[in-house]
């Protein structure tokens, strides 16, 4: 079954303690025969201080910390003079300023079933009840999700480290014909008033040919003036079904930015639903879909603007490089009666690189309000002859030129990932898919 691995940054909702201050003890020991390393003492102290204090630390964790802190009192930082590190130089760590990585203490990231705070539980139920039934896959997830991963960011809390949700597919047991494992991960994100957080969802694969069905759901509530930056990367197996719901509710003056790059799955279907709950909201949606095989990438999105002075931008791009590849886009933006002075833009561009590749795009901007600024456009094309010639006229062969231009087309979306390590990773994934023969570093 798919699991959710939180990155180490997210692994500290544990409620820790502080045993004691190390400093006084250290000076005491300094006069004794064995030496304490002031650097190690200082590091230990920084780490202890970075953990929030709580009376309810579980005993095993308490014991672990106690024993470790005792040990550190008499352990020096390893240097080349220590036999085990004779050939391994760690001085560059020592020369750096060490900053502990933790989520702020009031942030919760973990299983809903492990949540004990009654007030938080109540807040979750209140918000969850506001999401409506969407479709069959939403409900299948709803009855089957074994737990709910909750990310709760309290009021005005800015989480600096991105939270990374990694969904790994089921391990490849020898699949019997006509069977599929189904997993139903579900995530709820609550970003309270004035809070900021970045979340990355990554659906990866271990075996390109393994059939399974991922049926994921992601819900987010973004409070007043709060900010959620969401990255979504899908590279599941070419025989997998990947169905994903993203449902977002945005309070007034909040910002939601989504960047999606999907290239995996036999079928990849993203249902994206965004509901505005107040004026002055900002919504930016950017999607890159890539079909390099006999596969379908499908984005069905709906954005409902009901309040004045909203701002929204949607960019959908797809590249189909296989004669049996398909891309589907149905993007609905509704600018309702009270959404005056809304600025809404929608653009879809498809690059079809095989004569029989298909794309079905239905950009759809419905405007009821009269005082609005809306733009939309759709283009389906092959590469531009004049651009290809420009490369050739400078001595670059046509295959390289094609590869660079195709990649540049997708690069516009990849560049929007807020995190450079994700940008680099996705760039090299896409390069490899577009040109499996090349090593991705040479482009």
């Amino acid at each position, binding site marked *: 079954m798919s699991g959710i691995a939180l990155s180490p940054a997210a692994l500290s909702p544990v409620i820790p303690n502080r045993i004691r201050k190390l400093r006084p003890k250290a000076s005491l020991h300094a006069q004794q025969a064995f030496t304490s390393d002031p650097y190690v003492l200082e590091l230990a102290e920084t780490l202890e201080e970075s953990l929030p204090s709580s009376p309810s630390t579980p005993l095993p964790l308490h014991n672990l910390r106690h024993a470790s802190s005792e040990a550190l009192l008499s352990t020096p930082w390893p240097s080349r003079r220590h036999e085990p590190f004779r050939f391994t130089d760690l001085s560059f760590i020592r020369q750096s300023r060490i900053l502990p990585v933790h989520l702020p203490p009031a942030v919760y990231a973990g299983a809903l079933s492990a949540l004990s705070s009654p007030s938080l539980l109540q807040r979750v139920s209140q918000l969850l009840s506001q999401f409506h039934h969407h479709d069959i896959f939403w409900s299948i997830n709803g009855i089957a999700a074994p737990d709910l991963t909750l990310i709760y960011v309290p009021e005005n809390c800015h989480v600096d480290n991105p939270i990374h949700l990694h969904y790994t597919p089921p391990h490849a047991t020898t699949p019997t014909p006509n069977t599929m494992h189904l997993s139903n991960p579900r995530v709820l994100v609550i970003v309270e008033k004035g809070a900021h957080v970045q979340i990355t969802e990554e659906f990866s694969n271990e075996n390109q040919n393994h059939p399974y069905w991922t049926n994921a759901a992601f819900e987010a509530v973004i409070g007043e003036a709060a900010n959620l930056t969401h990255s979504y990367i899908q590279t599941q197996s070419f025989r997998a079904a990947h169905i994903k719901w993203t449902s977002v509710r945005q309070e007034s003056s909040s910002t939601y930015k989504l960047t999606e790059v999907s290239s995996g799955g036999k079928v990849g279907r993203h249902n994206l639903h965004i509901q505005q709950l107040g004026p002055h909201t900002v919504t930016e949606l950017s999607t890159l879909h890539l079909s390099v095989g006999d596969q379908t990438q499908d984005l069905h999105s709906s954005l409902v603007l009901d309040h004045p002075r909203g701002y929204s931008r949607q960019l959908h791009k797809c590249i189909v490089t296989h004669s049996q590849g398909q891309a589907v886009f149905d993007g609905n933006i509704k600018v309702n009666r009270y959404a005056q002075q809304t600025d809404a833009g929608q653009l879809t561009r498809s690059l079809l690189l095989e004569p029989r590749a298909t794309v079905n795009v239905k950009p759809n901007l419905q405007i009821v309000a009269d005082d609005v600024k809306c733009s939309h456009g759709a283009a389906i094309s092959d590469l*531009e*002859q*004049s*651009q290809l*010639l*420009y*490369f*050739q*006229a*400078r*001595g*670059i*062969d*046509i295959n*390289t030129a094609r590869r*660079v*231009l195709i*990649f*540049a*087309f997708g*690069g*516009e979306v990849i560049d929007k990932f807020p995190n450079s390590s994700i940008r680099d990773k996705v760039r090299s994934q896409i390069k490899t898919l577009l040109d499996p023969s090349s090593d991705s570093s040479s482009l």
Partner: protein
Amino acid sequence: MALTLPTHSSPTVIPLRRTPKPTLRRANHRVCVASGGAPLLQVNDLRAKIVESNVEILHGVNLTVNQGEVHAIMGKNGSGKSTFAKVLVGHPDYEVTGGSVVFKGENLLEMEPEERSLAGLFMSFQSPVEIPGVSNDEFLVMAYNARRKKLGLPELGPLECFSYLMEKLELVNMKPDFLNRNVNEGFSGGERKRNEILQLAVLGADLAILDEIDSGLDVDALRDVSNAVNRILTPEKSLLMITHYRRILDLLNPTHVHVMDKGKIARTGDISMVEAIEADGYETVST
């Protein structure tokens, strides 16, 4: 096919000391002996049509450029000057329907556009296209490496190319942040022209065709561009410029001036013909 890389950025210094015939070299203007060199480009009765509409634009162009010569083509708007230049580099909008083109002894028309470039033919586009998503430095490094590969030299990484690119930027008087911008995207007219010359500086050429490189340039930019061209193209290299204006002719000193009319070279003369054109227009010279 011989191919040279522009290894000397300032060729003006050495000849003065080394050669007894400094007038053959370019000091500050290029001064060449007419028809001194071997034939570089021989165009014979070249005919070409637009692929899409089947309309013939070039109706039999004849032109020979020898090594070290500087030619200028003038002529009315729509007479086929750009089409001629684009046909020479192999633009897919046009199909050659007759005639021949020999470049350095080889049949140019049989070569792919990139082979023509690697063989030493460079054309600066009258309206260079924007390439969104591809940065100028990435593009230049790719083009430079394609050239090195052709010469059997190892390809260089972006960092190794950096100082080479900086030197060329200086040559065309451009700021380094130019390299980070996407190729021609959002460039002003003048910036596009400089960018074409930067590419010429990086790649070098045996024959450079400059299609209205002077249009839309202010006086300073024009001086930068002509200085750069004079320094990039050593005296044995050849130049074919398409222009409407006298200013650049005075800076680059053509040995031959042609007037194109209705898809043909209607007249050929020297710089003195330019005065007649400026006084009376193209009608008098082309008939």
